């Protein structure tokens, strides 16, 4: 088995706020991330696909195709967007790194037809990231 990884970057804003919490609770749990007008990050996404190289092309999957999938599913949805208000898949969820990574996994998983999605790693900053794997 061979692992292939493609990286993309997007910029987006978000804020953490749970309407079920009091203002004080929101502030205590989420700190600066609760500032009402939001803030932003340069996100780095690494998508890893596992598979056997095709004997004819030598490829696990066509990178051009993966690039198009990432453009369509991630860039067009999230790049230069306010994640809380403009990404329906995140509606009703706190757009933490964990939740965004899971949404991205769920968007990409059915689209990868050659090989299998192995890992989605989303960096919110160089020092904070979330990894998604297939369970089991």
């Amino acid at each position, binding site marked *: 088995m061979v692992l292939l990884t493609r990286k993309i970057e997007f910029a987006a804003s978000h804020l953490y706020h749970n309407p*079920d919490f009091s203002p004080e609770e929101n502030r205590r749990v989420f700190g600066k991330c609760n500032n009402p007008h939001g803030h932003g990050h340069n996100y780095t996404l690494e998508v890893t696909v596992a598979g056997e190289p095709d004997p004819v092309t030598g490829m696990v999957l066509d990178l051009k195709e993966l690039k198009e999938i990432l453009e369509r599913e991630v860039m067009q949805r999230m790049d230069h967007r306010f994640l809380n208000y403009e990404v329906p898949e995140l509606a*009703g*969820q706190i757009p933490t790194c964990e939740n965004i990574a899971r949404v991205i996994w769920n968007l990409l998983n059915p689209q990868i037809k050659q090989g299998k999605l192995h890992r989605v790693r989303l960096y919110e900053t160089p020092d904070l990231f979330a990894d998604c794997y297939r369970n089991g």
Partner: protein
Amino acid sequence: MNHDAQSGEVKIELGRRYRFAASHRLHSPDLSEAENCRVYGKCNNPYGHGHNYVVEVLVSGKIDPATGMIANLAELDGFVEREVLEPFDHKSLNEDVAAFRGVVPTTENLCIEIFRRLKPLPNATLERVRIQETSNNSFEYAGDNAQGFER
């Protein structure tokens, strides 16, 4: 908040990087002076030397639907600060960390010691610890969780 968001098909881990600077000297009392010199090379120089260590901590758990988080970052940062950064930063691993009396402070052993210190982390499961000693050398330890390396 949406409580149906949890998906059983996906395993999620959170990774956080921390940094500390420390000195060490690689020297085994079980080896002769000549053998120490041969095995450890420059790392055996008598007064030691230092590195800017980067410690990557990976934890897993369920995302709390109320917060969207596997682990509260402030709690995780506080725990790592107390257990690792405060006792190791700007210290001599050989002289200042009791675990390295009689144990050579290679980054392999440092991984094991940091994993041991972080294992009792509350509210999340420690999956593995990865340490960059320099930008060219890194080491990982997952305890008994051999699956950690299949990722």
